[in-house]
Protein backbone atom coordinates (compact mmCIF):
# COMPACT_ATOMS: atom_id res chain seq x y z
CA UNK A 1 0.00 0.00 0.00
CA UNK A 2 1.38 3.39 -0.89
CA UNK A 3 1.29 6.02 1.76
CA UNK A 4 -1.03 8.90 1.09
CA UNK A 5 0.70 12.22 0.83
CA UNK A 6 0.55 14.61 3.71
CA UNK A 7 -1.46 16.87 1.45
CA UNK A 8 -4.09 14.19 1.04
CA UNK A 9 -4.17 13.54 4.74
CA UNK A 10 -4.38 17.25 5.47
CA UNK A 11 -7.32 17.57 3.12
CA UNK A 12 -9.02 14.54 4.62
CA UNK A 13 -8.58 15.92 8.11
CA UNK A 14 -9.93 19.32 7.13
CA UNK A 15 -12.91 17.49 5.68
CA UNK A 16 -13.80 16.23 9.14
CA UNK A 17 -14.92 19.75 9.99
CA UNK A 18 -18.18 18.58 8.51
CA UNK A 19 -18.71 16.39 11.56
CA UNK A 20 -19.29 19.43 13.69
CA UNK A 21 -23.03 19.23 13.71
CA UNK A 22 -24.81 20.84 16.57
CA UNK A 23 -26.46 18.10 18.63
CA UNK A 24 -30.19 18.70 18.72
CA UNK A 25 -30.30 18.40 22.49
CA UNK A 26 -27.63 21.08 22.84
CA UNK A 27 -29.74 23.32 20.75
CA UNK A 28 -32.92 22.51 22.59
CA UNK A 29 -31.31 23.24 25.92
CA UNK A 30 -29.94 26.55 24.73
CA UNK A 31 -33.22 27.56 23.17
CA UNK A 32 -35.11 26.58 26.27
CA UNK A 33 -32.72 28.64 28.35
CA UNK A 34 -33.64 31.67 26.29
CA UNK A 35 -37.30 30.84 26.13
CA UNK A 36 -37.45 30.08 22.45
CA UNK A 37 -40.34 27.85 21.48
CA UNK A 38 -39.43 24.23 20.91
CA UNK A 39 -40.82 24.28 17.38
CA UNK A 40 -38.04 26.58 16.33
CA UNK A 41 -35.43 24.02 17.25
CA UNK A 42 -36.52 22.01 14.25
CA UNK A 43 -34.42 24.30 12.08
CA UNK A 44 -31.30 22.26 12.32
CA UNK A 45 -32.77 18.98 11.21
CA UNK A 46 -34.78 20.53 8.45
CA UNK A 47 -32.09 22.73 7.10
CA UNK A 48 -29.19 20.33 7.31
CA UNK A 49 -30.99 17.19 6.42
CA UNK A 50 -30.60 15.65 9.84
CA UNK A 51 -27.78 13.72 11.41
CA UNK A 52 -29.20 10.23 11.41
CA UNK A 53 -27.38 7.71 9.32
CA UNK A 54 -30.45 5.63 8.61
CA UNK A 55 -31.97 7.91 6.04
CA UNK A 56 -31.85 5.99 2.82
CA UNK A 57 -34.79 6.28 0.51
CA UNK A 58 -35.69 5.37 -3.00
CA UNK A 59 -33.54 7.86 -4.84
CA UNK A 60 -30.41 7.46 -2.77
CA UNK A 61 -29.58 3.79 -2.27
CA UNK A 62 -26.68 3.69 -4.69
CA UNK A 63 -25.06 6.67 -3.10
CA UNK A 64 -25.61 5.24 0.33
CA UNK A 65 -24.07 1.92 -0.65
CA UNK A 66 -20.99 3.64 -1.94
CA UNK A 67 -20.77 5.50 1.31
CA UNK A 68 -21.14 2.34 3.31
CA UNK A 69 -18.54 0.37 1.43
CA UNK A 70 -16.06 3.21 1.52
CA UNK A 71 -16.63 3.59 5.22
CA UNK A 72 -16.22 -0.11 5.80
CA UNK A 73 -13.02 -0.11 3.79
CA UNK A 74 -11.82 2.66 6.04
CA UNK A 75 -12.56 0.67 9.14
CA UNK A 76 -10.86 -2.44 7.85
CA UNK A 77 -7.78 -0.60 6.79
CA UNK A 78 -7.56 0.88 10.23
CA UNK A 79 -7.70 -2.56 11.73
CA UNK A 80 -5.24 -4.19 9.41
CA UNK A 81 -2.45 -1.83 8.75
CA UNK A 82 -1.47 0.25 11.72
CA UNK A 83 -0.78 3.86 11.13
CA UNK A 84 -0.66 3.71 7.36
CA UNK A 85 -3.99 1.97 7.49
CA UNK A 86 -5.29 4.51 9.90
CA UNK A 87 -4.34 7.27 7.59
CA UNK A 88 -5.99 5.53 4.68
CA UNK A 89 -8.94 4.95 6.93
CA UNK A 90 -9.12 8.60 7.61
CA UNK A 91 -9.13 9.24 3.89
CA UNK A 92 -11.70 6.58 3.15
CA UNK A 93 -13.89 7.60 6.00
CA UNK A 94 -13.59 11.17 4.92
CA UNK A 95 -14.74 10.24 1.44
CA UNK A 96 -17.53 8.20 2.90
CA UNK A 97 -18.46 11.02 5.18
CA UNK A 98 -18.92 13.38 2.29
CA UNK A 99 -20.95 10.92 0.32
CA UNK A 100 -22.96 9.97 3.35
CA UNK A 101 -23.68 13.57 4.17
CA UNK A 102 -24.87 14.03 0.66
CA UNK A 103 -27.04 10.96 0.78
CA UNK A 104 -28.59 12.11 4.04
CA UNK A 105 -29.62 15.34 2.52
CA UNK A 106 -30.71 13.76 -0.69
CA UNK A 107 -32.67 11.26 1.30
CA UNK A 108 -34.29 13.99 3.29
CA UNK A 109 -35.29 15.88 0.20
CA UNK A 110 -36.35 12.79 -1.65
CA UNK A 111 -38.45 11.83 1.31
CA UNK A 112 -40.25 15.10 0.88
CA UNK A 113 -40.41 14.53 -2.83
CA UNK A 114 -41.99 11.17 -2.16
CA UNK A 115 -44.92 12.94 -0.60
CA UNK A 116 -45.65 14.27 -4.05
CA UNK A 117 -45.42 10.95 -5.77
CA UNK A 118 -48.36 10.09 -7.97
CA UNK A 119 -48.52 6.59 -6.52
CA UNK A 120 -49.20 7.96 -3.10
CA UNK A 121 -52.90 7.74 -2.40
CA UNK A 122 -52.80 10.49 0.20
CA UNK A 123 -53.34 13.70 -1.70
CA UNK A 124 -54.01 13.29 -5.38
CA UNK A 125 -55.91 16.54 -5.52
CA UNK A 126 -53.11 18.53 -3.91
CA UNK A 127 -50.68 18.48 -6.77
CA UNK A 128 -51.16 21.80 -8.40
CA UNK A 129 -47.63 22.17 -9.72
CA UNK A 130 -45.96 20.72 -12.73
CA UNK A 131 -43.54 18.67 -10.71
CA UNK A 132 -45.27 15.50 -11.60
CA UNK A 133 -42.98 15.82 -14.58
CA UNK A 134 -40.17 14.20 -12.72
CA UNK A 135 -42.02 11.95 -10.34
CA UNK A 136 -44.18 10.49 -13.09
CA UNK A 137 -41.17 9.14 -14.87
CA UNK A 138 -39.29 6.52 -12.87
CA UNK A 139 -36.37 6.62 -15.28
CA UNK A 140 -35.81 10.30 -14.78
CA UNK A 141 -32.12 11.23 -14.71
CA UNK A 142 -30.65 12.32 -11.44
CA UNK A 143 -29.19 15.77 -11.65
CA UNK A 144 -25.64 16.22 -10.47
CA UNK A 145 -25.14 18.31 -7.36
CA UNK A 146 -25.75 21.98 -7.99
CA UNK A 147 -22.43 22.88 -6.49
CA UNK A 148 -20.06 19.98 -5.86
CA UNK A 149 -18.71 20.15 -2.34
CA UNK A 150 -15.00 20.52 -3.22
CA UNK A 151 -15.76 23.55 -5.34
CA UNK A 152 -17.37 25.25 -2.41
CA UNK A 153 -14.09 25.37 -0.62
CA UNK A 154 -12.45 27.54 -3.18
CA UNK A 155 -13.41 31.18 -3.24
CA UNK A 156 -13.69 31.01 -6.99
CA UNK A 157 -15.71 27.83 -6.74
CA UNK A 158 -19.04 29.56 -6.79
CA UNK A 159 -18.93 29.54 -10.54
CA UNK A 160 -22.53 29.20 -11.53
CA UNK A 161 -21.75 28.12 -15.06
CA UNK A 162 -24.61 26.05 -16.37
CA UNK A 163 -22.23 23.50 -17.84
CA UNK A 164 -21.27 22.42 -14.35
CA UNK A 165 -24.82 22.07 -13.26
CA UNK A 166 -26.22 19.38 -15.40
CA UNK A 167 -28.69 19.41 -18.26
CA UNK A 168 -30.36 22.51 -19.53
CA UNK A 169 -33.22 23.37 -17.28
CA UNK A 170 -36.05 25.76 -18.01
CA UNK A 171 -35.37 29.03 -16.30
CA UNK A 172 -37.90 30.51 -13.97
CA UNK A 173 -38.03 34.23 -14.28
CA UNK A 174 -39.89 34.76 -11.02
CA UNK A 175 -39.28 33.57 -7.47
CA UNK A 176 -41.88 31.72 -5.44
CA UNK A 177 -45.08 32.64 -7.21
CA UNK A 178 -47.01 33.90 -4.26
CA UNK A 179 -49.09 36.48 -6.05
CA UNK A 180 -50.03 34.18 -8.85
CA UNK A 181 -50.74 31.50 -6.34
CA UNK A 182 -52.96 33.75 -4.33
CA UNK A 183 -55.09 34.53 -7.33
CA UNK A 184 -55.66 30.84 -7.91
CA UNK A 185 -56.70 29.72 -4.48
CA UNK A 186 -60.36 30.45 -4.47
CA UNK A 187 -61.32 28.26 -7.37
CA UNK A 188 -60.70 24.56 -7.85
CA UNK A 189 -57.93 22.13 -8.49
CA UNK A 190 -57.98 22.80 -12.18
CA UNK A 191 -57.12 26.37 -11.44
CA UNK A 192 -54.57 25.61 -8.82
CA UNK A 193 -52.76 23.51 -11.35
CA UNK A 194 -51.61 26.73 -12.94
CA UNK A 195 -50.07 28.03 -9.75
CA UNK A 196 -46.56 26.94 -10.53
CA UNK A 197 -45.88 28.85 -13.65
CA UNK A 198 -46.83 28.81 -17.25
CA UNK A 199 -43.49 27.37 -18.28
CA UNK A 200 -44.69 23.96 -17.20
CA UNK A 201 -47.02 22.01 -19.39
CA UNK A 202 -50.50 21.39 -18.10
CA UNK A 203 -51.01 18.47 -15.79
CA UNK A 204 -54.28 17.42 -17.33
CA UNK A 205 -53.42 13.74 -17.08
CA UNK A 206 -52.69 13.96 -13.38
CA UNK A 207 -55.93 15.72 -12.66
CA UNK A 208 -58.18 13.26 -14.36
CA UNK A 209 -58.65 10.87 -11.43
CA UNK A 210 -60.10 13.66 -9.30
CA UNK A 211 -62.45 14.72 -12.08
CA UNK A 212 -63.64 11.19 -12.73
CA UNK A 213 -64.45 10.25 -9.18
CA UNK A 214 -67.73 10.58 -7.35
CA UNK A 215 -68.91 14.19 -7.53
CA UNK A 216 -69.63 14.99 -3.88
CA UNK A 217 -66.40 13.71 -2.35
CA UNK A 218 -64.54 15.33 -5.20
CA UNK A 219 -66.06 18.70 -4.42
CA UNK A 220 -65.27 18.48 -0.72
CA UNK A 221 -61.78 17.25 -1.49
CA UNK A 222 -61.34 20.17 -3.82
CA UNK A 223 -62.54 22.58 -1.16
CA UNK A 224 -60.23 21.02 1.39
CA UNK A 225 -57.34 21.23 -1.00
CA UNK A 226 -58.19 24.79 -1.73
CA UNK A 227 -58.33 25.71 1.95
CA UNK A 228 -55.07 23.91 2.59
CA UNK A 229 -53.44 25.71 -0.27
CA UNK A 230 -54.60 29.05 1.06
CA UNK A 231 -52.97 28.19 4.37
CA UNK A 232 -49.78 27.15 2.66
CA UNK A 233 -49.62 30.32 0.64
CA UNK A 234 -50.26 32.43 3.70
CA UNK A 235 -47.37 30.78 5.49
CA UNK A 236 -44.98 31.21 2.60
CA UNK A 237 -46.08 34.78 2.02
CA UNK A 238 -45.42 35.57 5.66
CA UNK A 239 -42.01 33.99 5.46
CA UNK A 240 -41.19 35.88 2.31
CA UNK A 241 -42.37 39.13 3.86
CA UNK A 242 -40.17 38.50 6.88
CA UNK A 243 -37.20 37.92 4.61
CA UNK A 244 -37.96 41.13 2.74
CA UNK A 245 -38.09 43.01 6.01
CA UNK A 246 -34.67 41.73 6.93
CA UNK A 247 -35.94 39.31 9.56
CA UNK A 248 -34.61 35.94 8.43
CA UNK A 249 -35.15 34.39 11.85
CA UNK A 250 -38.86 35.04 11.49
CA UNK A 251 -38.74 33.78 7.94
CA UNK A 252 -37.23 30.52 9.18
CA UNK A 253 -39.86 30.22 11.88
CA UNK A 254 -42.61 30.62 9.32
CA UNK A 255 -40.99 27.96 7.19
CA UNK A 256 -40.74 25.66 10.18
CA UNK A 257 -44.40 26.34 10.76
CA UNK A 258 -45.07 25.46 7.16
CA UNK A 259 -43.16 22.20 7.48
CA UNK A 260 -44.97 21.29 10.67
CA UNK A 261 -48.40 22.15 9.34
CA UNK A 262 -48.11 20.98 5.75
CA UNK A 263 -45.85 17.96 5.78
CA UNK A 264 -47.32 16.89 2.42
CA UNK A 265 -47.79 20.42 1.21
CA UNK A 266 -48.36 21.26 -2.41
CA UNK A 267 -45.87 24.09 -2.28
CA UNK A 268 -43.08 21.97 -0.88
CA UNK A 269 -40.65 22.98 -3.58
CA UNK A 270 -41.43 26.64 -3.10
CA UNK A 271 -40.88 26.24 0.62
CA UNK A 272 -37.54 24.54 0.03
CA UNK A 273 -36.41 27.22 -2.39
CA UNK A 274 -37.42 29.90 0.05
CA UNK A 275 -35.52 28.18 2.83
CA UNK A 276 -32.44 28.10 0.64
CA UNK A 277 -32.88 31.79 -0.02
CA UNK A 278 -33.20 32.54 3.68
CA UNK A 279 -30.12 30.45 4.47
CA UNK A 280 -28.19 32.35 1.83
CA UNK A 281 -29.28 35.60 3.42
CA UNK A 282 -28.19 34.29 6.80
CA UNK A 283 -24.78 33.49 5.38
CA UNK A 284 -25.33 29.79 6.16
CA UNK A 285 -23.54 28.75 3.00
CA UNK A 286 -22.97 25.16 3.92
CA UNK A 287 -26.57 24.51 4.81
CA UNK A 288 -27.80 26.39 1.78
CA UNK A 289 -25.61 24.33 -0.54
CA UNK A 290 -26.49 21.10 1.21
CA UNK A 291 -30.17 21.79 0.88
CA UNK A 292 -29.70 22.94 -2.71
CA UNK A 293 -27.89 19.74 -3.65
CA UNK A 294 -30.56 17.68 -1.96
CA UNK A 295 -33.20 19.61 -3.83
CA UNK A 296 -31.44 19.04 -7.16
CA UNK A 297 -31.21 15.36 -6.36
CA UNK A 298 -34.87 15.09 -5.45
CA UNK A 299 -36.15 17.31 -8.27
CA UNK A 300 -33.63 16.99 -11.10
CA UNK A 301 -35.95 18.60 -13.62
CA UNK A 302 -37.41 21.29 -11.42
CA UNK A 303 -37.70 24.71 -12.95
CA UNK A 304 -36.52 26.11 -9.65
CA UNK A 305 -32.98 24.84 -10.15
CA UNK A 306 -32.11 27.91 -12.19
CA UNK A 307 -33.32 30.16 -9.42
CA UNK A 308 -31.42 28.18 -6.82
CA UNK A 309 -28.23 28.44 -8.84
CA UNK A 310 -28.76 32.14 -9.08
CA UNK A 311 -29.31 32.42 -5.32
CA UNK A 312 -26.17 30.49 -4.49
CA UNK A 313 -24.08 32.46 -6.93
CA UNK A 314 -25.50 35.76 -5.77
CA UNK A 315 -24.95 35.39 -2.04
CA UNK A 316 -26.74 37.47 0.56
CA UNK A 317 -28.47 40.59 -0.66
CA UNK A 318 -28.71 42.13 2.73
CA UNK A 319 -27.12 41.28 6.01
CA UNK A 320 -28.78 39.54 8.89
CA UNK A 321 -29.75 41.59 11.94
Amino acid at each position, binding site marked *: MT*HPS*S*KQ*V*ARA*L*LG*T*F*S*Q*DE*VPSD*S*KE*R*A*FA*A*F*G*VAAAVTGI*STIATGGASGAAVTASGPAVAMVAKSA*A*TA*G*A*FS*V*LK*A*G*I*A*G*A*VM*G*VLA*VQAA*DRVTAYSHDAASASHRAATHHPDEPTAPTQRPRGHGLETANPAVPVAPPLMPAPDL*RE*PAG*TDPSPAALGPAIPTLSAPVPSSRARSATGAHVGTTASIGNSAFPSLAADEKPAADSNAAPAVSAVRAASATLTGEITRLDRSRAALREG*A*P*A*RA*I*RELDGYDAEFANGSLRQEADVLRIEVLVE*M*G*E*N*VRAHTLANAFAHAHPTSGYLAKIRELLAR*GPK*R*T*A*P
Partner: protein
Amino acid sequence: MPLAKVTPAPAPASMSTDAESEAAPSDSQNERIRSLLVLHFDFVWRSLRRLGVARSSVDDAAQEVFWIAARKLDRIEPGSARAFLFGIAVRLASDVRRRVARSRELSDDALVEAAIDPHADVEVLVDQKRARDLLDVVLETLPLELRTVLMLSEGECLTMAEIASLLGIPSGTVASRLRRAREAFETKVEQLLDAHRAKESAR
Protein backbone atom coordinates in the same frame (compact mmCIF):
# COMPACT_ATOMS: atom_id res chain seq x y z
CA MET B 1 -29.62 24.75 32.99
CA PRO B 2 -29.37 28.38 34.01
CA LEU B 3 -25.63 28.02 34.12
CA ALA B 4 -24.41 31.15 32.46
CA LYS B 5 -27.15 33.40 33.73
CA VAL B 6 -25.64 33.42 37.17
CA THR B 7 -22.03 32.81 36.21
CA PRO B 8 -20.86 35.33 33.67
CA ALA B 9 -17.31 34.76 34.89
CA PRO B 10 -15.84 33.22 31.73
CA ALA B 11 -16.50 36.39 29.85
CA PRO B 12 -13.34 38.22 28.89
CA ALA B 13 -12.50 41.04 31.25
CA SER B 14 -13.42 43.66 28.73
CA MET B 15 -16.87 42.20 28.39
CA SER B 16 -17.86 41.46 31.96
CA THR B 17 -17.58 44.89 33.48
CA ASP B 18 -21.00 46.11 32.47
CA ALA B 19 -23.70 46.98 34.89
CA GLU B 20 -26.48 47.00 32.34
CA SER B 21 -27.03 43.27 32.67
CA GLU B 22 -29.21 43.62 35.74
CA ALA B 23 -31.98 45.53 34.03
CA ALA B 24 -34.91 43.35 33.06
CA PRO B 25 -34.92 42.85 29.32
CA SER B 26 -37.78 44.32 27.38
CA ASP B 27 -39.95 42.31 25.02
CA SER B 28 -38.14 43.68 22.01
CA GLN B 29 -34.80 42.77 23.55
CA ASN B 30 -36.07 39.29 24.22
CA GLU B 31 -37.24 39.02 20.66
CA ARG B 32 -33.88 40.25 19.44
CA ILE B 33 -31.87 37.75 21.42
CA ARG B 34 -34.16 34.96 20.28
CA SER B 35 -33.62 36.02 16.71
CA LEU B 36 -29.89 35.96 17.26
CA LEU B 37 -30.19 32.52 18.74
CA VAL B 38 -32.27 31.17 15.89
CA LEU B 39 -30.01 32.69 13.27
CA HIS B 40 -26.61 32.14 14.73
CA PHE B 41 -26.62 29.42 17.37
CA ASP B 42 -25.33 26.76 15.00
CA PHE B 43 -22.61 29.01 13.69
CA VAL B 44 -21.51 30.00 17.18
CA TRP B 45 -21.54 26.42 18.41
CA ARG B 46 -19.49 25.18 15.46
CA SER B 47 -17.09 28.08 15.76
CA LEU B 48 -16.42 27.41 19.43
CA ARG B 49 -15.84 23.75 18.71
CA ARG B 50 -13.48 24.60 15.87
CA LEU B 51 -11.67 27.17 17.93
CA GLY B 52 -10.67 24.39 20.27
CA VAL B 53 -13.36 24.24 22.94
CA ALA B 54 -13.73 20.62 24.01
CA ARG B 55 -16.93 18.83 23.08
CA SER B 56 -17.92 18.63 26.72
CA SER B 57 -17.70 22.39 27.11
CA VAL B 58 -19.14 23.65 23.85
CA ASP B 59 -22.77 23.70 24.95
CA ASP B 60 -22.05 25.86 27.97
CA ALA B 61 -19.74 28.12 26.03
CA ALA B 62 -22.29 28.62 23.26
CA GLN B 63 -24.95 29.65 25.75
CA GLU B 64 -22.44 31.91 27.39
CA VAL B 65 -21.83 33.72 24.12
CA PHE B 66 -25.51 34.53 23.86
CA TRP B 67 -25.82 35.57 27.49
CA ILE B 68 -22.97 37.99 26.92
CA ALA B 69 -24.57 39.21 23.70
CA ALA B 70 -27.88 39.67 25.51
CA ARG B 71 -26.23 42.23 27.73
CA LYS B 72 -24.75 44.07 24.78
CA LEU B 73 -27.67 44.19 22.42
CA ASP B 74 -27.54 47.93 22.08
CA ARG B 75 -23.99 47.73 20.84
CA ILE B 76 -24.75 45.40 18.00
CA GLU B 77 -24.85 47.38 14.80
CA PRO B 78 -27.44 46.33 12.24
CA GLY B 79 -25.97 43.72 10.00
CA SER B 80 -23.04 42.95 12.26
CA ALA B 81 -24.58 40.49 14.70
CA ARG B 82 -22.75 37.53 13.29
CA ALA B 83 -19.41 39.30 13.50
CA PHE B 84 -20.25 40.51 17.00
CA LEU B 85 -21.12 37.02 18.20
CA PHE B 86 -18.06 35.59 16.52
CA GLY B 87 -15.88 38.12 18.30
CA ILE B 88 -17.31 37.02 21.63
CA ALA B 89 -16.86 33.39 20.66
CA VAL B 90 -13.20 33.85 19.77
CA ARG B 91 -12.44 35.53 23.08
CA LEU B 92 -14.46 33.04 25.06
CA ALA B 93 -12.82 30.13 23.27
CA SER B 94 -9.33 31.28 24.07
CA ASP B 95 -10.37 31.86 27.66
CA VAL B 96 -11.87 28.40 27.98
CA ARG B 97 -8.88 26.80 26.32
CA ARG B 98 -6.46 28.60 28.61
CA ARG B 99 -8.27 27.27 31.63
CA VAL B 100 -8.46 23.77 30.24
CA ALA B 101 -4.83 23.79 29.16
CA ARG B 102 -3.73 24.41 32.71
CA SER B 103 -5.53 21.35 33.96
CA ARG B 104 -4.65 19.08 31.09
CA GLU B 105 -1.13 18.60 29.86
CA LEU B 106 -1.35 16.18 27.00
CA SER B 107 1.38 16.05 24.45
CA ASP B 108 0.59 16.10 20.77
CA ASP B 109 2.02 12.68 20.56
CA ALA B 110 -0.31 11.19 23.13
CA LEU B 111 -3.28 12.75 21.42
CA VAL B 112 -2.20 11.48 18.06
CA GLU B 113 -1.71 8.02 19.51
CA ALA B 114 -5.19 8.18 20.91
CA ALA B 115 -6.59 9.54 17.70
CA ILE B 116 -5.17 6.95 15.38
CA ASP B 117 -4.75 3.93 17.64
CA PRO B 118 -5.28 1.08 15.21
CA HIS B 119 -6.48 -1.28 17.92
CA ALA B 120 -9.29 0.89 19.12
CA ASP B 121 -12.92 0.48 18.08
CA VAL B 122 -13.67 -0.47 14.52
CA GLU B 123 -16.91 1.36 14.35
CA VAL B 124 -16.85 3.81 11.50
CA LEU B 125 -18.26 6.60 13.56
CA VAL B 126 -15.49 6.18 16.05
CA ASP B 127 -12.97 6.29 13.26
CA GLN B 128 -14.47 9.50 12.05
CA LYS B 129 -14.37 10.85 15.53
CA ARG B 130 -10.72 9.92 15.80
CA ALA B 131 -10.00 11.71 12.55
CA ARG B 132 -11.81 14.72 13.92
CA ASP B 133 -9.71 14.49 17.08
CA LEU B 134 -6.61 14.42 14.95
CA LEU B 135 -7.80 17.58 13.26
CA ASP B 136 -7.99 19.20 16.69
CA VAL B 137 -4.46 18.09 17.43
CA VAL B 138 -3.14 19.73 14.30
CA LEU B 139 -5.23 22.86 14.72
CA GLU B 140 -3.89 23.26 18.25
CA THR B 141 -0.48 23.93 16.77
CA LEU B 142 -1.70 26.82 14.64
CA PRO B 143 -1.71 30.41 15.86
CA LEU B 144 -5.25 31.58 16.59
CA GLU B 145 -5.47 33.98 13.66
CA LEU B 146 -4.50 31.24 11.21
CA ARG B 147 -6.78 28.71 12.83
CA THR B 148 -9.65 31.17 12.61
CA VAL B 149 -9.41 31.82 8.88
CA LEU B 150 -8.81 28.16 8.16
CA MET B 151 -11.89 27.01 10.00
CA LEU B 152 -14.06 29.74 8.48
CA SER B 153 -12.87 28.81 5.01
CA GLU B 154 -12.80 25.03 5.32
CA GLY B 155 -15.50 24.52 7.90
CA GLU B 156 -18.01 27.22 7.06
CA CYS B 157 -17.13 27.47 3.35
CA LEU B 158 -17.06 31.25 3.61
CA THR B 159 -15.41 33.20 0.84
CA MET B 160 -12.43 35.39 1.53
CA ALA B 161 -14.63 38.46 1.24
CA GLU B 162 -17.07 37.02 3.76
CA ILE B 163 -14.25 36.18 6.15
CA ALA B 164 -12.81 39.65 5.72
CA SER B 165 -16.15 41.18 6.54
CA LEU B 166 -16.69 38.91 9.53
CA LEU B 167 -13.27 39.60 11.02
CA GLY B 168 -13.14 43.24 9.99
CA ILE B 169 -9.82 42.84 8.21
CA PRO B 170 -8.79 43.41 4.57
CA SER B 171 -9.33 40.63 2.04
CA GLY B 172 -5.63 40.60 1.27
CA THR B 173 -4.88 39.81 4.89
CA VAL B 174 -7.38 36.97 4.81
CA ALA B 175 -5.77 35.59 1.67
CA SER B 176 -2.28 35.63 3.12
CA ARG B 177 -3.42 34.17 6.44
CA LEU B 178 -5.28 31.45 4.63
CA ARG B 179 -2.23 30.56 2.58
CA ARG B 180 -0.02 30.48 5.65
CA ALA B 181 -2.62 28.48 7.54
CA ARG B 182 -2.78 25.81 4.85
CA GLU B 183 1.00 25.60 4.66
CA ALA B 184 1.35 25.36 8.42
CA PHE B 185 -1.40 22.77 8.59
CA GLU B 186 0.19 20.57 5.94
CA THR B 187 3.62 20.92 7.51
CA LYS B 188 2.29 19.80 10.85
CA VAL B 189 0.48 16.85 9.31
CA GLU B 190 3.68 15.87 7.54
CA GLN B 191 5.64 16.02 10.79
CA LEU B 192 3.11 13.88 12.59
CA LEU B 193 3.04 11.32 9.82
CA ASP B 194 6.83 11.14 9.60
CA ALA B 195 7.15 10.72 13.35
CA HIS B 196 4.65 7.91 13.44
CA ARG B 197 5.97 6.11 10.42
CA ALA B 198 9.39 6.21 12.03
CA LYS B 199 7.94 4.82 15.23
CA GLU B 200 6.10 2.07 13.39
CA SER B 201 9.13 0.95 11.44
CA ALA B 202 11.25 0.90 14.61
CA ARG B 203 8.91 -1.63 16.21
